[in-house]
């Protein structure tokens, strides 16, 4: 792939001038996290004013819990988007982890800890399966994970025949329902996960190489990096995070529902894209993923508060994705122009 070329080299002062001309609002477009953070603040203020129940401890706790659940799903998606691919099977892997957890606790009577470990291993294996198909057989990630979406979903329904597992011990729901320092455990787990993402992409070779792969696969390959291994590993990690999201979902719900994960795909894309994970690959932001999750949850919350017909929810989410992608294009355009 070619790196974009300028016709003419801008001097530093020209660049600064350009930047000033482009202005504050447009510079927000250039720095995705800044724009989205401001959007979050505005939404928070609007909701606080509009609804007296919004700023109650109960609602904050609840919103934080939803944000955390979504953030794990978004991380699972962002981990492969950043390398230039996608994972359409995030929700299906989440569903697999959910029924695995439920099956081993409810049917087999295993201790929850063992069931969780098995579920996470299933997630890793599913991600590895995706990764192997993509890198060894050479099928692109869209087609490969579209196929495994059905493979995994079929397994979920084959095992459960559509019935949920409901004999989940109360103790298992502590993580998903209780909290500390006014915020849910789920929220603190998410903070750890986002910290991990930040560390991975700023201080690990793997993260650097995955970013590079998303930027230019060819350039990364000729730099001596085993690109296939990096892509495979990113899918393994994606599977792991989808499985973590699934296990936490069981803990939150107190039961293992086979339908879990069916709406994750659209949510994962919406959050990742809003959060500054360019669809073309090569960028990721832990802060952006957090803010993206908050926005999606607030909008869902807000739609309910506004009393709109929630059966249209998928339509709203789809429109939000279109909006986010459009903003992404505009951002890229000004990024080119701003010269910073």
């Amino acid at each position, binding site marked *: 792939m070619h790196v974009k070329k300028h016709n003419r080299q801008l001097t530093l002062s020209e660049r600064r001038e350009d930047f000033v001309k482009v202005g504050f609002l447009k510079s927000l477009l250039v720095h995705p996290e800044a724009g989205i953070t401001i959007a979050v603040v505005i939404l928070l203020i609007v909701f606080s004013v509009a609804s007296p129940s919004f700023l109650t401890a109960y609602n904050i706790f609840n919103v934080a819990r939803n944000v955390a659940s979504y953030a794990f799903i978004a991380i699972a998606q962002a981990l492969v988007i950043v390398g230039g691919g996608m994972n359409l099977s995030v929700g299906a892997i989440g569903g697999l982890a959910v029924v695995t957890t439920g099956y081993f606790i409810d049917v087999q009577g295993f201790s929850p800890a063992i069931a969780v470990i098995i579920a996470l291993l299933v997630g890793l294996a599913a991600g590895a399966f995706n990764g192997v198909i993509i890198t060894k057989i050479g099928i692109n990630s869209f087609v490969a994970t579209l196929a495994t979406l059905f493979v995994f979903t079929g397994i979920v329904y084959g095992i459960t025949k559509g019935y949920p597992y409901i004999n989940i011990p109360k103790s298992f729901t502590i993580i998903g329902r209780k909290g500390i320092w006014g915020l849910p455990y789920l929220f603190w787990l998410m903070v750890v996960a986002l910290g991990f993402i930040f560390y991975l992409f700023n201080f690990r070779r793997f993260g650097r190489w995955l970013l590079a792969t998303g930027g*230019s696969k060819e350039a990364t390959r000729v730099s*001596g990096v085993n690109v296939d291994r990096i892509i495979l590993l990113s899918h393994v990690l994606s599977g792991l995070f989808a499985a973590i999201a699934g296990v936490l979902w069981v803990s939150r719900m107190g039961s293992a529902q086979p339908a879990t994960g069916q709406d994750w795909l659209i949510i994962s894309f919406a959050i990742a894209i809003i959060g500054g994970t360019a669809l073309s690959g090569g960028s990721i932001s832990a802060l952006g993923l957090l803010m993206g999750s908050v926005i999606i949850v607030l909008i869902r919350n807000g739609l309910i508060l506004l009393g709109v017909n929630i059966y249209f929810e998928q339509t709203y989410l789809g429109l939000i994705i279109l909006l986010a992608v459009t903003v992404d294009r505009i951002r890229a355009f000004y990024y080119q122009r701003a010269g910073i």
Partner: protein
Amino acid sequence: MRENNYTLEMKNIHKSFGGIHALIDVSLELRHGEILGLVGDNAAGKSTLMKILTGAYQANRGRIFFEGREVHITNPRVSRQVGIEMVYQDFELCPNLNVPANLFLGREITGNFFKALKNRQMENKAVEILGRLKIDIKNSKIKANRLSGGQQQALAIGKAVSFNPKVVIMDEPTASLAVMEIEKVIDLILRFKEQGISIILVTHRLDDIFKVSDRIFVLKHGRRVDVKETSQTNKDEIIKLMF
């Protein structure tokens, strides 16, 4: 024991793509510290020959010797380990990474603490490397897609030469540059020669070849036509050999 006259020897290289014979029985010798110009018409096989050296392609037949020892360059990592670096026709930088990240891609400096990346140290070293090569990039935190064409090419060259390579291959390093920037690249090439690096320069610009090269290797329709001492030939003769 074979005599070790050459830094690099390619012997009887064959390469075909489907039905196309891109290289037919090509042998190439690169002397210690020389600049070898590699010329030929479009599709003569120049890039293909060089990509076999960097492990991007595998030859169908033939052998490669590096400093007298046979090497099997099965992928770009092996090539880099041997001491061969290539500057590609189309830059091959990661547009989304900044200058130090590009410079150190594939050989990042890591610390003792869990092998975490030492970003500060790489930034400082990058500034040092750019300075040493007199590459004019003021803000090293800038991403590669914000650099001018000349800066990108300079960075790609910097990436190839800053880790003590023995052989540097440059495929059309000046193709997309303005005249001023071409001069800078020529200067860089001559400076690397002084440091004892052997260089293969692929270009359509015969002026550049005659300015810097010691010998000129002519490729035509995938075959080696001739190799001339630069001082004992002229442009007309080379052009005749090429077409």
